[in-house]
């Protein structure tokens, strides 16, 4: 993995005649940036735009990596749904990127990554036999298998129960250390725990929100985490009103 670059984006995104957002965003290299905002404000659109996926609109502006190299094939992506292929076992699911590019997959590495996410006993099982939390851990192993310096996470933990979600957050924070991570989330608590940088998005601007001084992943019960979470929630509610 090369040194993780930052990403800069500035521009306007329209869906037909409606302006979805007109904004500027800096994502710091090698750190976690959490992108918050009301539903429909275009958080996922920013992520999809940079990934080169269909956004249903047109973007006028620019985005680039801080080191000037192209972004394509340097970003791995994890969504809310685990997107595991039901007919493949976990090892094959973790290697799917290599298979889809027509490369020979390194199955031993896939197994060791599954072990790192705590699924060593399940490597040969199909996704249908596993719980939602286990499936999302397998999806994290698939993301790690790509070993890319930038990782985009689109609400990957939002469908999990509270306990599993906290475990997944710790695991992801640990395993994605040193990479440039953009996490799109609805959850102020998640942002307060995980972010080096919190960006709160509204249609006309991205506001950088102060984070606690301690390093993430922060203790959920620490005063500063709770305070940050509370203030964020109040802000988001104020915006919605």
């Amino acid at each position: 993995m090369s040194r993780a670059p930052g990403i800069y984006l500035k521009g306007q995104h329209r869906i037909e005649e409606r302006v979805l957002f007109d904004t500027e965003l800096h994502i710091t290299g090698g750190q976690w940036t959490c992108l918050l905002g009301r539903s429909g404000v275009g958080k996922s659109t920013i992520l999809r735009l940079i990934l080169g996926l269909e956004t249903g609109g047109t973007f006028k502006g620019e985005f680039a990596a801080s080191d000037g190299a192209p972004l394509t094939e340097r970003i791995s992506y994890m969504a809310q749904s685990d997107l595991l292929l039901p007919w493949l076992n976990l090892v094959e699911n973790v290697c799917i990127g290599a298979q889809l590019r027509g490369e020979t997959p390194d199955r031993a590495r896939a197994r060791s990554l599954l072990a790192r996410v705590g699924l060593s006993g399940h490597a040969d099982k199909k996704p249908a036999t596993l719980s939602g939390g286990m499936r999302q851990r397998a999806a994290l192993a698939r993301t790690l298998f790509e070993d890319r310096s930038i990782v985009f996470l689109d609400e990957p933990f939002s469908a999990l129960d509270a306990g599993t979600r906290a475990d997944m957050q710790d695991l992801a924070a640990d395993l994605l250390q040193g990479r440039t991570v953009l996490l799109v989330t609805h959850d102020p608590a998640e942002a307060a725990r995980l972010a080096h940088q919190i960006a709160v998005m509204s249609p006309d601007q991205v506001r950088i929100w102060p984070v606690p001084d301690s390093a993430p992943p922060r203790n959920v019960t620490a005063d500063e985490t709770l305070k940050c979470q509370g203030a964020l929630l109040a802000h988001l509610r104020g915006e919605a009103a």
Partner: protein
Amino acid sequence: MKASDILVAMLVGLGLWQAIVVVTAAPHFILPSPWRVAQAAYKSRVIIAENTWVTAIEVVLGLLIGTALGVATAIQLAMSKMAERLMLPILVFTQAVPVFALAPLLTLWFGYGMGSKIVMAVLIIYFPVTSAFHDGLTRMDSGYRDLSISLGAKKWHFMKRIQIPQALPSLGSGLRLAAVYAPIGAVIGEWVGASKGLGYLMLLANGRAKIDLMFASLIVLACLTVVLHVAIGVLAKKLTRYAQGTG
């Protein structure tokens, strides 16, 4: 469907048949009794078996070739927008031509042997298989597409690793239809011109006023279709289980 249910349904059917024969007092050359048909079937068992074998081969070969062509066409259509634009209208148009109307022509081109019947079966199942599989290939969770793009997937590998496996249940539905249509195609082909097969035997028996033999052939043909339907049903279930990862 439980075996006991099927048995009861068959007994009810036979009972009704016998009742109609008794009530209407129809002569045996119009409506033979079940018992008479069973006797005729036993007496002509060798000739029925020979002709069943011919029809079965036509149907199975027709199914195999039609499925292979349908699968290849569906993949081609799903891979290339251009092919889809050019070929879909042609495919739909060919469906407007009743395949039965082509039977005499096919007999002229492919002869009185098995060839024309196999072509008939292929033609009749080609569209249902193509259309069901093509639907399955193109109707897909957009999340898989997004993931594949982010992983730098190549088109053909995406087709092979994701599109085809997830479309297998749809192929199964197409095959279920094909299993019902293929015998129809083969028998119509035999009616138009043949020297072997159950359709030929039915016409022959009819011409010689052996209505009991005609009924026996018809029942064997129905049994053949049911066996095929059940076998394809098992296969279709397997395809679905595979795609869901529960097999």
